[in-house]
């Protein structure tokens, strides 16, 4: 059997192509980005010419995927956990419309916030939308379960969530692939009103979704991806979800002495959990993320069997798990290893030397000197690193697009001038509608769209904003006299300061676009050109 070394995310991409998708829809976001990138370079995906372009944001991705499913084809949609917040409207309602062609929604969570602004656990969303959730524990399962996900979706008639976390996403292992299946034929839904969520129809569809729960549970109970393993020592029963199972096994290389359940498919298998409760004195729940099952099983009044986990303090409430953390929760001796010497310095991420964002921040700081600190609202991207020294330029980073709308709100409150700093791709992702609000109300804000013509933090994917920003701003109604394109570079420093100062003084919406290609992307393109 030929093994390929694949990251967890690559295994999902590979599994989706081999599982017969006709399209992937996604917006880049760590740790989910490489799923789509893998499909973009996959031989079969190219041969079949399946859809593999980036979407403007996660909501447009989710909706386009639902459209592909409507047309009877299989489709994969991928995002990071916070991307699901953006796509939540479409996501939740897709549970109610149901699917026609199989639809798998892969959401990559980032516990410990390695590259994120929070660490939400997407299983809550899956439960909320009442759809099946798959949570693979290793790369092979990531491949197999992606393929299985499409079958499960078509069997249950609803989308299936594939939930992974950073550690599996970005860890490599050998994966054995199976022969690919054909794509689905184009086929309209048998009920022409299935996707029409008018109240009368929505009520019917919702009731169908409620009835569907027992079907989902039944499949989960019978699933090979969930297993109950008996153990001799009944003083403890363990539930290990997703990759938490690996950490449990790491601590018991010769087999776990306690009865335990590995859960990789939800709704959680009720009868296995019931059995564990009956057989064991107490239960330990190992979950990568938030305490979803622990909360479900925990006894509110403290009269039943004891359930331990992140809420009880057996495991830390926040952050990703590790073999050491799990060992501690099992009462094993704590191995600390050798201490880190005191002389160590931290090495926080920083803007690359020569990056255009640097020149933009130096100019912005100088232009704002007369007004004082505390009036720069920023956004998600490399330029968020402008919060750190030596720039210390920005005061907010909340969610995609929030820079413009928060600057507007602060300006409404009287903080004039208010400045927004947003990237090109974040602007087209979620900034345009906020800019429209500001234009409609003639808000006094200065919007700096720091344009490096790339989605850079995630590795330089194509930005949907390229070549369109000025036209978008004009189209939304920004006065062309207050739209400026600059070349952010040391040699243009004075010009940049002057333009920013002038627009800070303008009572209305101004847009300044410092534009210089991401130096990492430029270098990559040069390298690729050399190769060819």
């Amino acid at each position: 059997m030929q093994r390929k070394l694949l990251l967890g995310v690559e295994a999902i991409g590979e599994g989706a192509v081999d599982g017969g998708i006709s399209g992937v829809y996604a917006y880049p976001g760590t740790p989910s980005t490489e799923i789509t990138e893998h499909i973009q370079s996959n031989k079969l995906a190219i041969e079949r010419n399946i859809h593999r372009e980036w979407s403007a944001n996660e909501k447009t991705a989710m909706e386009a995927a639902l459209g592909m499913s409507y047309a009877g084809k299989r489709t994969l949609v991928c995002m990071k956990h916070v991307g699901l917040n953006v796509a939540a409207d479409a996501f939740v309602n897709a549970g109610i419309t149901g699917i026609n062609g199989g639809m798998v929604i892969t959401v990559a969570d980032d516990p410990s916030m390695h590259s994120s602004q929070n660490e939400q656990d997407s299983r809550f969303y899956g439960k909320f939308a009442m759809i099946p959730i798959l949570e693979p524990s290793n790369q092979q399962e990531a491949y197999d379960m992606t393929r299985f996900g499409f079958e499960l979706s078509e069997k249950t008639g609803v989308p299936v969530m594939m939930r992974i976390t950073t550690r599996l996403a970005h860890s490599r292992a050998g994966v054995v692939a199976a022969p690919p299946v054909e794509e689905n034929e184009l086929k309209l839904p048998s009920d022409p009103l299935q996707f029409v969520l008018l109240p009368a129809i929505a009520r019917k569809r919702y009731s169908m979704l409620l009835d569907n729960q027992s079907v989902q549970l039944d499949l989960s109970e019978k699933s090979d991806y969930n297993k109950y393993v008996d153990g001799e020592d009944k003083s403890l029963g363990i539930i290990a979800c997703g990759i938490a199972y690996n950490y449990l096994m790491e601590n018991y290389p010769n087999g776990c002495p306690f009865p335990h359940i590995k859960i990789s498919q939800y709704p959680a298998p009720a009868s296995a959990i019931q059995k564990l409760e009956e057989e064991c004195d107490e239960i330990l729940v190992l979950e990568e993320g938030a305490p979803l099952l622990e909360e479900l099983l925990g006894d509110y009044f403290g009269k039943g069997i004891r359930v331990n986990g992140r809420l009880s303090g057996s495991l830390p409430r926040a952050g990703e798990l590790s073999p050491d953390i799990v060992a501690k929760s099992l009462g094993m001796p704590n191995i600390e290893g050798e201490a880190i010497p005191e002389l160590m310095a931290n090495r926080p991420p920083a803007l690359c030397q020569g990056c255009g964002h640097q020149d933009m921040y130096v100019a912005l700081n100088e232009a704002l000197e007369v007004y004082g600190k505390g009036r720069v609202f920023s956004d998600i991207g490399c330029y968020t690193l402008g919060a750190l020294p030596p720039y210390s330029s920005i005061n907010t980073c909340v969610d995609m697009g929030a820079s413009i709308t928060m600057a507007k709100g602060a300006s409404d409150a009287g903080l004039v001038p208010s400045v927004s700093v947003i990237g090109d791709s974040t602007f087209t992702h979620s900034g345009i509608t906020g800019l429209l609000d500001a234009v409609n109300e003639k808000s006094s804000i200065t919007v700096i769209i720091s344009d490096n013509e790339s989605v850079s933090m995630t590795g330089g994917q194509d930005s949907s904003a390229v070549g369109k920003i000025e036209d978008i701003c004009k189209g939304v109604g920004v006065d062309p006299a207050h739209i400026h394109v600059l070349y952010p570079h040391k040699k243009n420093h004075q010009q940049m300061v002057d333009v920013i100062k002038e627009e800070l003084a303008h009572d209305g919406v101004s847009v300044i676009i410092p534009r210089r290609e991401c130096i990492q992307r430029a270098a990559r393109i040069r390298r690729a050109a050399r190769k060819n």
Partner: protein
Amino acid sequence: MKSDIILAGVGGQGILSIAAVIGAAALENDYHLKQAETHGMSQRGGAVQSHVRISDKQISSDLIPKGKADLILSVEPMESLRYLPFLSEEGYIVTNSTPFKNIPNYPEDEKIIEEIENKKNFVLIDADKLAKEVGNSRASNMVMLGAASPFIDIEYSKLEDGIRAIFAKKGDKVVDLNLKALRAGRDFAKVNK
């Protein structure tokens, strides 16, 4: 057989090329392998690490438990100390001596070297210099892998095969250069461990 290796460096230094060669060599040997990488924000000049686990048996965790790593292979001296809690008592530190200074408060070079030289098992190597000597400073990561090779439970010839597999697309010259770099690092470590 098992080797638990922590690769360390700074985002942009290319530690993943080392991981790729080890991975190809492990696959060649039909070993199990898990290799956890750092992607995302830290790649912008932050501290990056990769846990590489090779075994002839099934590997459970993608992460190496504390006190269990057989080797810390670092392409930057200060970074070799960041993961000490993971090193086993008999484990080796193999590190490049050339610092990468992208922070204002980088400690004094001598103090870092002193810390490393206080460890039980270490190889301190000027990989940049050795790489230049064999023909290209960009091959320093393969010098580092060569220097670590005596402490990795994989036949040397399989690591060479790994280099051939990973660099094949770049042509024979690049393959040869990296093979030479690997050899230079290994020869140094054998004398200086």
